[in-house]
Every structure is written in structure tokens, then in C-alpha cells.
């Protein structure tokens, strides 16, 4: 996987076929039996979702650093031209300001879709998200809320992003009741989940796997559709061990599942999709079936969201477990420059862990 960010970053001059026509083709009508679907990559799917969000809700706005001309990952291409500079606009480089502004906009009943250029830059806005956005409804006794708020941020490794362009900060936000955290694994998922996040009446932090922006291509229905939040999905059925992950890591885990199968191990793979509030039932049901659990994410293992899943499942399935819950995650170091291959929870690490858990 991956020549990575040089490809992402190079501003594309071509417009994906179909994109220019998107505006006309979108409709909010419920899909018929065979909705038109074409192959799109992840950033184009995000772009479609944003087009739909702006088209279907005149009170929706998209803003962030450099989004006016398409953003560094091209996710907002064409939006400013189509919906005007009053609804799609650049902000100064001030993340705290962007999110604070978005919360205010959302508090007045608008849909504020804010972009933080890299998830690594979200920390200046941490206070606004944790103390302002997440608790607004609770502390005002439901008089106010910022449910229309969605913060999009590309997260994760790209092969050579080094310390400040590769981090996966999802666990920080999973510690904040009041926020939702959503991470898609593919273009089709990204479009449906983003539309759900935007329309969800709670503030959502939506992390996009930047490694997959161009790499992941699949058929994406062109119409307006939403995928439910807080519902995990079994994307591969198996009987020996349950693997839980989200975002870009799922493709790594899937490869490990395929390799494990060659050695006679049947793996069940679950995409959690929404990290809080997360779908414990689906994971529990699977672990009850397989008796083993492995969780994998790019963020450092200690305090990662995998720990929360492990603890919850041990509580629920203690007597059913046949091996300790395994976590294959990033190491407990800053995201490294030259050591990225060592740091990452690679396919072989996942495979090793599958084997040692099954043979426990």
C-alpha cells in the first residue's frame, strides 16, 4: 500500500469524470432497486457527500484551511464554485477558531461542516471540542446544542508522513461523552457515514483515512444515502477469532485474515465504524461465537480505544474467552520518521497475533 502522500498532495488538475455532473445527478429521493453506482475513490466519495449535504440543506456550510480551492486532499473540490463563497470558504490558520466558530454556527441551528487539515492539527481545537461542543446540550439542560457540528479530519499514516502528519488521535475524543467519533473504511462507507454524521443531531468528529483517499476505489451509489451510526458491520465471517478494527487498518487486517485462512484459521472481521457510542452487541455476539478477540489500530497501544473494547468484552464474555484479548497497535512512541514500518501494526504482526491467540 502505498506511495503515499506525494501522490495525495500533488494537486490534481483533472476533475474525476462524473464530478462535474454530480450536481445535476444528485437527488434526495430514496433509492430504487438498482441505484446507479460508479467507481470512485475515497476523496471523491467524500466530495459527493459534501455536495449532497450542501444541496439538501441550505443551512449547511463547509469551511476550513484552504477548502475554498479544494483542500489539500481535494475533498472540497468544486464546492465553492457550486455553492458560492458564502457557504464554502477558507478560514485563517487557527484550529481553535475554526471549531469555536463552527460550534456557534451549529448552535444557531445550522450544519457546520468544519475541516481540520490534518488530524494532527486538531489539538489547538481540543478545548473547544471537549469543553464547548461535547457538553453544550448537557450543561444547558437541553436548551442549546451544537448537533449540527461535524468536524472532518484526515488521520493516520501514509508511509512517510512522520511526526505531525500521521497521527491517529481518535482515542482522545472517545473519552468525551457528548461527542461521536466516526471512521470510515472505504469510499461507499465514507459517503454514507459522512452524510449520517452531518445530519446526526450530535457533534461528530469524522476521521478520514488519508492513506485511502486515492488508494481505495469501489462502486459508490451516486444518490443520497446514509449509513447508520453506532452500528458495526461484520465484513468477513469466521469461526476461530474475531478481529475488530476501523478505517485504514481494516485492509491490513483483511490481508492477515486471508493469510490466516491459508493456514486453516477462520477469522471474523468487524468494522466498528462508530467508535463512540460503539456497537458492543455486534462485537459481543461475534466473540461469543469465536471465543477470541484481536483489536488493531494505528494509534499507540496504551490508552488506545482497543483497551476500551478489550475491557468491555472481557466483562461481557469472560467465561467464553479462550485466550487473552490481543491488541496489535502502534507502539508507545511518538509517530516516527524513519521507523514507520517498525511502528505500524503491519499485516505480519496481525497474523502473528492471530496465530498466537488461536494457539494459546
Amino acid at each position, binding site marked *: 500500500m502505498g506511495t503515499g*502522500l*506525494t501522490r*495525495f*498532495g*500533488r*494537486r490534481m488538475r483533472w476533475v474525476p469524470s462524473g464530478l462535474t455532473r454530480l450536481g445535476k445527478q444528485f437527488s434526495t429521493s430514496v433509492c430504487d432497486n438498482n441505484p446507479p453506482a460508479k467507481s470512485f475513490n475515497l476523496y471523491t466519495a467524500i466530495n459527493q457527500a459534501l455536495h449532497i449535504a450542501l444541496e439538501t440543506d441550505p443551512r449547511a456550510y463547509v469551511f476550513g*484551511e*484552504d477548502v*475554498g*480551492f479544494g483542500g*489539500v486532499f481535494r475533498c472540497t473540490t468544486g464546492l465553492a464554485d457550486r455553492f458560492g463563497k458564502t457557504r464554502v470558504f*477558507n*478560514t*485563517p*490558520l*487557527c484550529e*481553535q*477558531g475554526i471549531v469555536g466558530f463552527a460550534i456557534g454556527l451549529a448552535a444557531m441551528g445550522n450544519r457546520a461542516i468544519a475541516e481540520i*487539515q490534518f488530524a*494532527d*492539527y486538531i*489539538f*489547538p481545537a481540543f478545548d473547544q471540542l471537549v469543553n464547548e461542543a461535547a457538553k453544550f446540550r448537557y450543561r444547558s439542560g437541553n436548551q442549546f446544542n451544537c448537533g449540527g457540528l461535524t468536524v472532518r479530519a484526515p488521520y493516520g499514516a501514509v*508511509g*512517510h*508522513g*512522520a*511526526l*505531525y*502528519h500521521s497521527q491517529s488521535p481518535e482515542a482522545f475524543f472517545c473519552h468525551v461523552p457528548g461527542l461521536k467519533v466516526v471512521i470510515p473504511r472505504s469510499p461507499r462507507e465514507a459517503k454514507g457515514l459522512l452524510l449520517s454524521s452531518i445530519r446526526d443531531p450530535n457533534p461528530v468528529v469524522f476521521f478520514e483515512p488519508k492513506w485511502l483517499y486515492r488508494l481505495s476505489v469501489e462502486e459508490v451509489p451516486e444518490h443520497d444515502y446514509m449509513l447508520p451510526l453506532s452500528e458495526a458491520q461484520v465484513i468477513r465471517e469466521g469461526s476461530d477469532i474475531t478481529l475488530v478494527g476501523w478505517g485504514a487498518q481494516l485492509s491490513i487486517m483483511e490481508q492477515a485474515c486471508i493469510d490466516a485462512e491459508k493456514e486453516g484459521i477462520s477469522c471474523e472481521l468487524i468494522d466498528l465504524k462508530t467508535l463512540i457510542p460503539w456497537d458492543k452487541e455486534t462485537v459481543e455476539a461475534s466473540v461469543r461465537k469465536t471465543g477470541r478477540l484481536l483489536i488493531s489500530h494505528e494509534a499507540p*497501544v496504551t490508552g488506545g480505544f482497543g483497551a476500551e473494547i478489550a475491557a468491555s468484552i472481557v466483562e461481557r464474555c469472560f467465561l467464553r474467552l479462550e485466550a487473552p484479548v*490481543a491488541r*496489535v497497535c502502534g*507502539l*508507545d*512512541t*511518538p509517530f*516516527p*520518521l*524513519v*521507523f514507520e514500518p*517498525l*511502528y505500524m*501494526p503491519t499485516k505480519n*504482526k*496481525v497474523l*502473528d*497475533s492471530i496465530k*498466537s*491467540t488461536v494457539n494459546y
Partner: protein
Amino acid sequence: MALSHLFSSSRSSTLLKPLTTSYLLRRPISTDSTPLTIETSVPFTSHQCEAPSRAVDTSPKELLTFFRDMALMRRMEIAADSLYKAKLVRGFCHLYDGQEAVAIGMEAAITKKDAIITAYRDHCAFLGRGGNLLQIFSELMGRIDGCSRGKGGSMHFYKKDANFYGGHGIVGAQVPLGCGLAFAQKYSKDEAVTFALYGDGAANQGQLFEALNISALWDLPVILVCENNHYGMGTAEWRAAKSPAYYKRGDYVPGLKVDGMDALAVKQACKFAKEHALKNGPIILEMDTYRYHGHSMSDPGSTYRTRDEITGVRQERDPIERIRKLILSHDLATEKELKDIEKEMRKQVDDAIAQAKESPMPDPSELFTNVYVKGYGVESYGADRKEFRGVLP
């Protein structure tokens, strides 16, 4: 709007003529420190303070040093560009070409006792502080001879012995740190100052104002240097700032607007600012400069500005060309001698790259070092927590 602003300060050629008429004889290259006075390209504009004189004291030696150092920086950045495109440099990479005069002029006015802290566009600041090319190219390529032992990369250069506090990754986050450095300097009464550099993009970050307030409240010897290259990533300054007059943004803090393409003006301003900061506390220097490259290597730098604009700046305001003209008009060296200097710099860069390529990658165990200080005993685990398990050194 941005364009007219950039070119508004047209350079009159008379400024390049000698001011000291007594200066007639050719001096040997770079050893002559006879005083020489040269006027800055444009006057300083001041806010809440009296601007320093436009007449800058210099010498043939200094001008030739400026030329050589800036030529080296320019060549180095262009080489870094090629290395990045060859995928020998990983991580993010932000180049300084066009802005060399700021690093050069600042160094000429201060000592290594003074501290410098900057953001991620840090290659030339490091070189200016006395770093060498081998350290730079090794760090860029993640080798152990790098200034951060290959663990930082382009955005994270540091040089402790020269008080270069480096290379920070988050826009604007280094400025409050710089104010903390200045507090320590004032506290220990070492009569030194801190230059905290940031860009016009970072100038809109809230933490800047928080730090400025504290610094002004306690009269900290900190100089906030806004390197205004007119684009915060891909957004023109006037689209991002209600007042792009960054030297005035400190309100109660004095400020000075400087032609950041004129090394001598930068030197004069930094000398003035250091004296001011030691006596009266913080001051903002806005350096009107320009980056020829895009924001980072993934930005071609041409989607939000015109090629004509870039070419125009190169032709009319280039910091190296300005010094070249000064040297030639004062007859301090011949055109060929300057070309030879450039060739020599090119060779130095090529040699350093060849040497850096020989430098080994850090040992994989280095992944776990420096996370905590030695002895904390924090464990790190491999995949299954059994076969690979190490205590962080």
C-alpha cells in the same frame, strides 16, 4: 491586491550606488572589514516606536559573507527539493528559498547567546546558527549524522550549543515557547534575547496573542519575527487576516515593518529590536518576504498565485541578487568571482549530500529511545506481547 502590495516597493537603482565616496580601491575578497554604509531598500515602518535609521553599517567582508551564505542556502534548498522528489527525503519538507535574507540578516545582528525558535521551515535558520550541511542532509534523509540523529526530519532541526530551539510542527505553537525562553533569559539576567519566528499564517493563531500579552506584561526580551511570505499555506494573507499589517497586530506592543528581502535592513531591524527588547520588552518585526517554493513539497505553489507574481519577485526583489548588485556596484568582487563562489557552494552541497547518503540509518532500537528519560522503565510491546518486549531505555 496581493500583487500590487508585493510590488509596491519598487527599488530605485540609485540606492545601489555607493554612499561612501571615499571608497575607491578594490579590496581583496571577504577579508576587508572597512566600514561601509548602505541605505536600506525602503524605509522601515514603525508602530509605537521610532524606526531605526535606514543607513546600515556593513563592510565588504560582511556583504561577501552574506552573498556566500545565501547562495549556499539557496543551493541547499534546491538540492533538498530534488532529494525529496527522488524520495530520499521522507516526512514533510518546507523550503526557505526566497526568504534567505531573514535568516542571514538576523544572524548578523545577534550572537549565539541569543536564542532562535522557529516553525517547520527551519533548514536555513539551522544553517545560520552554525549547523553544517552534512547534519542537514543527513537529518533530511533520516540518517544518524543528522542534527536530530535522524529522528526528526526536515521539520525538526535543533542546535543546542547555538541556542537554536528548532523546528516545531504545529503552526504558531513555537511562539509561546519562545516567550518562555525569553523569560528564562530575563530571569537569569544573561542579557540575551529570543527571536521567535512564525509566518503570516500563524499570525492568526490565538496562542500568539496569549503569549504576547504575558511577554508585554512582564517585559520579556522576546522578539516576535513574523516572516510574512504573504501566503499561509494556500491562502493569501488578505483572505486570512483582517489586518495584514502584522507589525501592528501587537496593539500595545511596538512593531517594525522590514523589507525581508534586504539582508541589511533585516540586520538593522534585528539590532534595533534586540536593544529594544532588552530595555523595554517585546517587539514585533514583520519581515516582508516571499517563498519561491510552495508551502510544502506537496504544494506546487502555483494554484493560488500566478507564475508572473513569482517571476516578478525573483526579478525585482531577490535577496541574493540584491547583494550581488551591491557587491558589483561597490566593486568588491567581479561577476566571475561571485559565480565562482556559487560554484563552490554547489560543490559543497553536492559533497555533503554524497557524504550524507553514506551515513547509516539509526539503529532500530532508537525507535524506543528519548520517549522518556532513561530509567523510567516503561515497557513497549510487540504484536503478541511475548516474543517482542522491551523496556524503553
